[in-house]
């Protein structure tokens, strides 16, 4: 483990590793797309990437700059219409993992990408909005979320529920009849959080190497619970870093 790496690189590598068992992944743009493409190039060559622009089985040689990058269409097994990707492919629960980013995330894994501030009609900050996320969060087998950890992003309760995670706790998804298991993993630049099996509250289960627990607690806007058997993420391997950097270089 001789190579130096950044916290963002650790985040991408940890997110990529999470895609080990996943067969198909509905990929949000940005950090999720980077991680999914890193996974495809390292331990998960058969990972099936689905983008909401209608690209099924995309195999981009460089990181797509947007959800509708031509590279995705050119390398896909099939390009279908946007209504079809949502209706025929996402909605029936065919996709194993939904991989999302977030502007705000709360302790039950609910995602806000709509507005910051308590008044929807007079927001402090108007965010881009929902995109495909509400139905990705509802219909995929499980959901991974990747975002940088800080107290503005990690809040007790999101200002606006754009995409439903575990609501107010364990059992809410079942009560609403949501088919997927919802967020099972949050990957940040500091560590990994997973919903507590009993309460569904996001709990720190892994620290990235060299990160102090205090720092994670300070970066979290709620009283962070920590798993009893808190583990340390293995540092990125030389190969992981090499592939990640090549990917980023090819996309510059």
């Amino acid at each position, binding site marked *: 483990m001789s190579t130096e790496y950044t916290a963002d690189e650790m985040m991408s590598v940890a997110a990529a590793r999470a895609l080990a068992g996943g067969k198909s992944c509905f990929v949000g743009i940005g950090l999720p797309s980077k991680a999914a493409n890193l996974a495809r190039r390292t331990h998960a060559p058969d990972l099936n990437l689905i983008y909401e622009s209608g690209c099924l089985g995309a195999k981009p040689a460089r990181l797509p700059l947007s959800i509708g*990058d031509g590279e995705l*269409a050119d390398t896909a097994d099939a390009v279908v219409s946007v209504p079809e990707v949502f209706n025929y492919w996402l909605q029936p629960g065919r996709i194993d993992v939904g991989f999302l980013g977030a502007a705000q995330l709360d302790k039950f894994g609910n995602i806000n990408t709509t507005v910051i501030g308590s008044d929807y009609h007079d927001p402090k900050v*108007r965010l881009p909005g929902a995109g495909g996320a509400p139905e990705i969060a*509802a219909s995929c087998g499980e959901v991974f979320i990747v975002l940088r950890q800080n107290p503005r992003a990690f809040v007790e309760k999101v200002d606006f529920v754009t995409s439903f995670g575990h609501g107010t706790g364990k059992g809410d998804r079942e009560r609403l009849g949501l088919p997927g298991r919802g967020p099972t993993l949050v990957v940040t630049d500091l560590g990994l959080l997973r919903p507590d099996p009993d309460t569904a509250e996001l709990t720190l289960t892994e620290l990235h190497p060299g990160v102090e627990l205090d720092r994670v607690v300070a970066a979290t806007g709620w009283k962070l619970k920590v798993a009893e058997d808190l583990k340390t993420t293995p540092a990125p391997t030389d190969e992981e870093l090499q592939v990640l950097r090549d990917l980023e270089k090819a996309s510059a």
Partner: protein
Amino acid sequence: MAELLSLEEAVARLVHDGDTVALEGFTHLIPVAAGQEIIRQRKRDLTLVRMTPDIVYDQLIGAGCARKLIFSWGGNPGVGSLHRFRDAVQHDWPVPLEIEEHSHAGMANRYVAGASGLPFAVLRGYTGTDLPAQTDTIKPITCPFTGEQLTAVPALNPDVTIVHAQRADRAGNVQMWGITGVQKEAVLAAKRSIVTVEEVVDELEPRPGAVVLPSWAVTAVAEVPGGAKPSYAAGYYERDNAAYQAWDAVGRDREEFTKWLNELTGVKA
């Protein structure tokens, strides 16, 4: 049958103040030239519709063409926020902007209903989110066979839909390929439609992945080479990513934007 018109004439004849107008495209084939022609012709009080409003919508909003936006994700893809859109929502500049907000799945199905001549569509969507509380365009509906509760959204039927495609033939049949998003549905859902194309050709040679819109389903075709720039047109040109980045600085500042707008519309400062 589609009429072959200049872009100027097509917009002048088919887009009216107060219309509901959809300029669709999913990163690929964005009808940018048509959007800027709407700005030049100073159309007002438009209800703009688009799943993914990007910089041309930022421009239309900043230019004061829109009074309402119906959308599901508004951003500068790969760069960040739409500052004119933000300024309109947060500070009513240059005019207030009403918003009607959906998810992609909801918007796509609203176009599908519109294209299908149905008043609504059914989906599994929005469950548990705060979106339904902000609009009367998301309602529950019960399956008459199973009793299961699902979500209904009303059809979108724009007065005009504008899309960009690679080619048309002289009869006005349109051919597009690559990522074609929701363009077919948006055109079929509209009362009138304009398709700008990279070129008009004698014959539309069949191509893998091509979607064909028959001439009789389109109102006007306008030849506008480069009409999707700075987005891309598969087979014609690549995306100009620098232009998207450059827009961030222009859109971020009212003065910079006004300069840009005056240049576009030929107004002397």
